[in-house]
């Protein structure tokens, strides 16, 4: 698996998590990201309004 190769490159990397193919695909999947865009913006708006 391509994404798993980095675990071996450094002892530090072996102790963390690395996203797999699906997680990476979702990062640039336009439809999913439009949905996330709306969710993140709504959350940010709540944070902004709670902060003022």
């Amino acid at each position, binding site marked *: 698996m391509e*994404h798993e190769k*980095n*675990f071996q*490159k*450094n002892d*530090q*990397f072996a*102790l*963390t*998590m*690395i*996203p797999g193919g699906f997680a990476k695909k*979702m*990062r*640039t999947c*336009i439809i*999913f*990201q*439009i949905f*996330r*865009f709306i969710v*993140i*913006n709504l*959350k*940010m*708006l*709540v*944070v*902004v309004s*709670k*902060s*003022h």
Partner: protein
Amino acid sequence: MARLVVMGGGVSGHTAATFAKKWLGKEHEVVVVTPNSQWNWIPSNIWVGVGEMQKEDVIFPLAPVYEKAGIDYRQAKAVSIHPEGKEDDDTPFITIEYTGQNKKGQTDELTYDYLINATGPKLNFDATPGLGDGNGQMGSHTVSVCTADHAVHANEELQKIFDKAKAGERQKILVGTGHGLCTCQGAAFEYIFNIEHEAKEAGVRDMIDIKWISNESFLGDFGMGGLHMKVGGYVVSSNLFAESLFAERNVPWIIGAHVSKVEEGKVHYELLDGTTGVEEFDFAMLIPPFAGVGLKAFAKDGSDITSKIFAPNGFMKVDANYNAGSYENWKASDWPRTYQNPDYKNIFAVGIAFAPPHLISKPAQSVNGTPINPTPPRTGMPAGIIGKAVAHSVCDLIKNGENAKLHEASMAEMGAACVASAGKGVLDGTAAAMTVYPVVPDFEKYPGTGRDTTYTYGEVGLAGHWIKHILHYMFIYKAKLYPGWTLIPE
């Protein structure tokens, strides 16, 4: 007619001055004293530093904006504060030294009824031998992205590295913090990911080793003691989130590091365990530690009262609890609410200029006694919100008298959004978007993590990247006071 003088026209000072002028109208005077002729949207310097934006994209001239707003703009730096006036006149005043407007080098006195200190940080390069040039400026061994000009220079040096890598010469890049007491890890974090992205785009990633060095005791501390966020049904530490981002990009890290000396192509550092090391580099971007800008203060009789008004690090004392003691005793309520100076009630400090009561991260020092811990970040959103709240207070004091209730904006009740993007393309960039609420953890209100995990979260993707783009245009639009600017939140 009352006069408000704002020292510093950056994120918080510009916000304070423009709102104050809007609320006070023509009846009262607002003066901005700031040495820069251009306003800089600092977060986008990162993109200038990798050549994805030009300097002109992140700056604009202040004079026309202030003229339109009716703000008296002095291109000058504030030098000293005289809160009791002078022997024969009780009117408080500041002294300024012009840096432009055809008066360069000339000095002047400016009286005030209310004073807001928004002078931000002094980039204290000289705190680390070799990081500075010995005259207060950045040295020649490393680069910085803290100002637009620094970022232009950083990109020029970076492109040379890419050219060498293209020619088959293996290159080493080091990014992080240049001292054990730095803050602003987020900026370096964003820069390293942008470099990594650009190296890939340029087809030279395999020829470049990229490494992180920082004073955080764990990766993902960010000067906030880390944070916990909801990811995939779990509540996880930002440590795991940050380490994952680095591992995915094949970027190893050195943490808990105090950079003690910089030489050509070499960084000397001390770690928390007391060991020392040397890291070689062909290109290094190291954030300098921040200090106050070195304003002085004098009493009526001319005696020096700088230490009464300012903390030893040069930041201005406000209504914080500076006697909280050790880490175990720290509370969210130690953090200031009104930003009023305790001794002079007509003086306020906003943004980076106010002295925090203590760190947010757990204090740490090496076994040799060298303090190595991030100092508290005061990012754009808190700087803007605090600037606006203080402007509101000053307007109420002017309009309703000195007993008017002050507006409050505690960093322990305020969130911050941090979007660290990599790349600039609309479809190929991604970003780590993080929101934290509140910035200063409140373990009494949120036992366990100190924060509200519904609103403290992070994720990687295009969505965050789009938000970063929108923020760039939105904040420059707002700072230019274009129609509807007051509707855009800080």
